[in-house]
């Protein structure tokens, strides 16, 4: 199993990364950035499908809320109606998960490649020798230069800048796709999970080599760009200081506000697209 993983996934990514580094003037940090962009481009059709699927789910949100109100006391019926709604709209509710699952092995391979390629200890260098292709580009690149923009890519970033960037970019990306909840309890839950993920990644960044954190930051930024152009605009992410406060003519219930917000965001997005 380990051999299959190495031969089919890890070794091609690892050697590709090392060869790329040699092509980019021996700059491994640049190689990580370029490879991340390439990987995201290859996965673009999947990301596009995922984003479209998420967008379609968001469009169904008002109808969903109506159903939730209508069948609040009959969970079985609610499930049936929700499934019927998904079917009518041609959406597989788990459809947006597949791209995520497919990306997972690539993340792991990239992570392992960065770790192995940098060979922080003499032992790591010996292990690396077992994975290298006999290519001149690879031979000449070893051992890699781990310095990039003041970072040692094989070591955690002591300045915490990368941890903040990882957390921030992930938070923005999540905020763009997370609709506000209908009731305060759900809203609190949702805010907590939206905060937890970036915080956890930021925490892990303190432990992981900065090369991997660099990959996460670049990957998140690309994700934000894709989300911006495909879903149209910033979605559910608000810039409080940039927006004028909207005069409220009459008080609205939390449910009504939440039901209106997705369509507003989508309309704004459509305008920008237009």
């Amino acid at each position, binding site marked *: 199993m380990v051999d299959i993983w190495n031969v089919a996934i890890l070794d091609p990514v690892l050697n590709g990364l090392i060869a790329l580094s040699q092509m980019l003037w021996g700059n491994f940090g640049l190689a990580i950035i370029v490879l991340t962009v390439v990987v995201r481009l290859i996965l673009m059709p999947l990301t596009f499908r995922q984003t479209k699927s998420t967008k379609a789910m968001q469009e169904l949100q008002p109808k969903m809320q109506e159903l939730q109100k209508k069948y609040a006391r009959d969970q079985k019926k609610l499930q049936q109606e929700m499934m019927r709604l998904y079917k009518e709209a041609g959406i597989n509710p788990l459809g947006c998960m597949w791209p995520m699952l497919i990306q997972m092995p690539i*993340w792991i391979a990239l992570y392992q490649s960065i770790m192995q390629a940098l060979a*922080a200890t003499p032992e790591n260098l*010996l292990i690396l020798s*077992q994975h290298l292709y006999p290519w001149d580009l690879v031979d000449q690149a070893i051992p890699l230069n781990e310095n990039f923009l003041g970072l040692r890519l094989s*070591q*955690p970033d002591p300045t915490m800048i990368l941890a903040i960037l990882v957390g921030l970019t992930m938070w923005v990306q999540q905020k763009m796709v997370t609709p506000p909840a209908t009731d305060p309890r*759900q809203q609190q839950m949702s805010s907590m999970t939206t905060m937890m993920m970036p915080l956890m990644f930021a925490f892990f960044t303190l432990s992981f*080599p900065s090369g991997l954190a660099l990959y996460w930051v670049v990957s998140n930024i690309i994700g934000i760009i894709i989300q911006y152009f495909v879903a149209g605009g910033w979605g559910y992410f608000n810039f409080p200081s940039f927006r004028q406060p909207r005069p409220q003519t009459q008080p609205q219930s939390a449910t009504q506000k939440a039901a209106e917000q997705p369509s507003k965001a989508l309309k704004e997005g459509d305008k920008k697209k237009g």
Partner: protein
Amino acid sequence: MRKVSNLIRVVILLGLLLLVFVSGCMPGMGGGCSGAQAQGWSSFAPYNELICFGSMEGSVIALNPKARSEGKAFPSETEWIYAIKTATPGSACGAMCAPSSAASGKGIYATPLVIDDLIFEGTYTGKVYALNASRGVVRWIYPREGFETVGAIVGNIITDGKALYFGSANGKIYALDAVTGDFIWEFQTSNKIWTAPVLDNGIIYAGNYGGNVYAIAAETGREVWSIKIPSAVASSLAVKDQLLYFGTFDRNLYAIDKADGTVKWKYLAGNWFWATPVIRGSTIYAACMDNKIYAIEAADGKEVWKFEGDGQMVSTPAVTDNHIFAVSEKGTLYKLDITNGTMISSVSVGYTVYGNPYAEGDMVYIYARDHKVYAVDTVKNHVDWDFSSEIK
């Protein structure tokens, strides 16, 4: 909708945890987030009836093979241990983190050097220790207390009897007074040095990971010449007559003229020549990570014979008048006929071995990754005794 997005988050989290798990980053897994730990792979240096080595726990240990063979408690008779104090990893996030510097590992890579009654050891933490060889008491430490360390020392220390010379991961070659430990000179190269230099006729030759080979005057520390080759220098250097020999990461064994660095010949193999080439008479014996031991004509680089083992040949073989003792990474010790590379016998210690075997008479000593020293009787073809360096 919310359920699905929460599900996605759970998947990401699980993936991350898997990532953490496979990387060995979890506390207590011992890997550290930066991969394999720096454990070291020192070989042995003889001093009277003792054999001395740097342990994976960061100690210098002197063993008496006779006492070990008799099963006496350690330390016995003339044996001793000196535990080197290592710096605590200074990372921002505690035990989970990788060391903040590559030099904060504990293990020792360099084989001790013995001159008269002093034993010298270079450490991965960037210090040189001079110990009394009969008692294991510190004579001096370089750099002095309060001064910054010199960068990880992986290659062996060499000497001309008066001064010590060694390369460091900070890319410098240092010269120290062997008696006092006083600084004499340093020479900055273009890249990291993880190998040992070699000394010949007052000139020090050293290679680095930038693909440079330098010739430096031992007396002054001034450059005599330097050359750039297409790949980084993987092995320590060896010298014989007019030529210097070393392996590179482009899978070649190079022979260059020691007068000016002109490449005389190179021999391409299937992987790196990581181990130091050993020269006996007119032949070079070179262990290669393509699982083979090569015997090559020193003058023109023509292959004489080759022997294939059961795993990568990482360590430098021990060469005696009639035999070659080579250990594969898988822990198999091979006794080969020096004339034609025929295998005479083999013994497996059952654990990974990166350190060089040391031969003394019929006995070969191996320090394996299970932290044990194995004494292999190559006539009776069995492990005579073993000793764990994990001393409680």
